[in-house]
């Protein structure tokens, strides 16, 4: 079945909301920036008048002022933007339950099954109208059969426009664009491609996947597929809560770790914390990552996609240990180690794997009980037998942890 995917992008989101709430600013160049009173602080968003002066998102406020002396800088009001983001999601929810937020201002919608409400373009146009009349802001919407082209489409015409990329027209619309218009082509990738004479998306599409792999690693093949419209990734049901992009814990251990048994024990402690935090947020991780630092401070990270998303300590531990065994040669003892769950999805949103599911749900029950016991009686009330005789077990990373959500700065986009 041919998929119909929309990507909706709130135009100049923070700046648009500020201009709505401050009518006196609408005719002026406006930037939303942190700490305008301070000399530091950066441009988080700007309106079109500010954009016309060459101001870039992410640059320092003093630079922006130099480019545009009349620039009005207003402080960000995140609670208001969050409220707007939720209202926008409410509108999307009238057309499909498959909505994947990408930051506060962007979302993918799978409307394949929504034809009773109109085709992709009709739904896109309805959403645009409602954004204007109900929220007072505009969106640009891309319509395509995959997420990558839908996103690319939403960037092509702004503000308040619908762009359709079909199997018939993608070669003429998408392929002439510079490589960096493709999602995931950042500065480093762009430079590597450029060094090999690839400057447009058609250059990526026409290259041999193996050649791209030799330049970019596994990403090369992925980008080749994206450029050819072969992205089949689903729109996952994902809310603002997914603004937390990963959940991880690391610790510098009381003594250096010298063997696998040591690593296994510490990994258990970390995995329990990561798992408990994932469960608290109702999330599961598709990718498990480890970070290892040896006693000469050389460090590396390795990650691996899991067969099924998980938020269970046992599974996270096993995955982390497996990655570790495959990537460490014990040339030196280890000083610190970290475990992280990435590529988060809402718990239970994925198809279960039929066969090991009984085992999985049993583990799930056990770990939920442990969560509860620890909540009531403290972290050390229940411990893994594997840790009982260990001198490495007096770490409680969950309550010591620092959360690193991807804040608005993580989504700096035009």
């Amino acid at each position, binding site marked *: 079945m041919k998929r119909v995917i929309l990507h909706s992008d709130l135009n100049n989101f923070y700046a648009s909301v500020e201009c*709505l*709430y*401050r*009518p*006196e600013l609408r005719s002026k160049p406006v930037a939303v920036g942190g700490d305008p009173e301070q000399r530091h602080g950066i441009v988080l968003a700007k309106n079109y008048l500010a954009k016309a002066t060459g101001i870039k998102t992410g640059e320092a406020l003093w630079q922006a002022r130099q480019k545009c002396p009349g620039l009005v800088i207003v402080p960000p*009001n995140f609670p208001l933007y969050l*409220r*707007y983001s939720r*209202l926008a999601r409410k509108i999307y929810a009238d057309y499909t339950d498959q909505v994947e937020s990408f930051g506060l201002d962007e979302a993918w919608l799978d409307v394949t099954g929504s034809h009773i409400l109109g085709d992709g373009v009709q739904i896109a146009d309805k959403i645009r109208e409602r954004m*204007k*009349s*109900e*929220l*007072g*802001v505009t969106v640009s919407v891309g319509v395509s059969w995959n997420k990558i082209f839908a996103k690319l489409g939403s960037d092509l015409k702004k503000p308040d426009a619908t762009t359709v990329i079909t199997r018939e027209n993608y070669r003429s619309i998408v392929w002439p664009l510079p490589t960096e218009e493709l999602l995931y082509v950042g500065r480093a990738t762009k430079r590597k491609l450029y060094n090999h004479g690839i400057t447009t998306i058609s250059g990526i599409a026409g290259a041999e996947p193996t050649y791209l792999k030799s330049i970019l690693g596994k990403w090369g093949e992925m980008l080749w597929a994206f450029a050819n419209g072969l992205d089949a990734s689903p729109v996952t049901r994902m809310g603002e809560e997914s603004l937390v992009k990963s959940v991880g814990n690391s610790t510098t251990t009381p003594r250096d770790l010298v063997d696998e048994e040591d690593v296994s024990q510490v990994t258990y402690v970390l995995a329990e914390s990561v798992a408990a935090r994932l469960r608290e947020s109702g999330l599961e991780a598709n990718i498990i990552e480890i970070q290892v630092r040896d006693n000469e401070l050389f460090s590396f990270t390795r990650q691996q996609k899991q067969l099924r998303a998980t938020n269970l300590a046992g599974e996270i531990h096993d995955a982390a240990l497996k990655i570790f065994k495959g990537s460490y040669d014990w040339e030196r003892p280890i000083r610190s180690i970290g475990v992280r769950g990435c590529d988060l999805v809402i718990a239970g949103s994925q198809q279960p794997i039929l066969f090991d599911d009984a085992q999985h749900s049993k583990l799930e029950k056990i770990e939920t009980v442990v969560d509860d016991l620890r909540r009531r009686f403290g972290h050390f009330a229940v411990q893994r037998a594997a840790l009982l005789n260990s001198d490495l077990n007096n770490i409680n990373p969950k309550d010591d942890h620092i959360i690193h959500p991807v804040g608005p700065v993580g989504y700096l986009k035009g």
Partner: protein
Amino acid sequence: MEEYNNPSKVYVDVLAVFNQEGELRPLALKWEDGRRYPVDRVIDVRQAASLKAGGTGIRYTCKIRGKQTYLFFEEGRWWVERR
């Protein structure tokens, strides 16, 4: 919302009722000068933005003294657009 000082957005006191269906319905509003105006009829209720006042909320289209007036309910406060 105190930081947005928009003269076209006039916050007002409103007398309202939650009816048995759980709907919120305004009955009367008190203008800045203290005068009270009964809401004669609510014609329409919907989520709507006001470019003039700057904001979005549940918009009640009301008949007040024979005139059609928008009354907005946003984040627990009522406001009208200054004419």
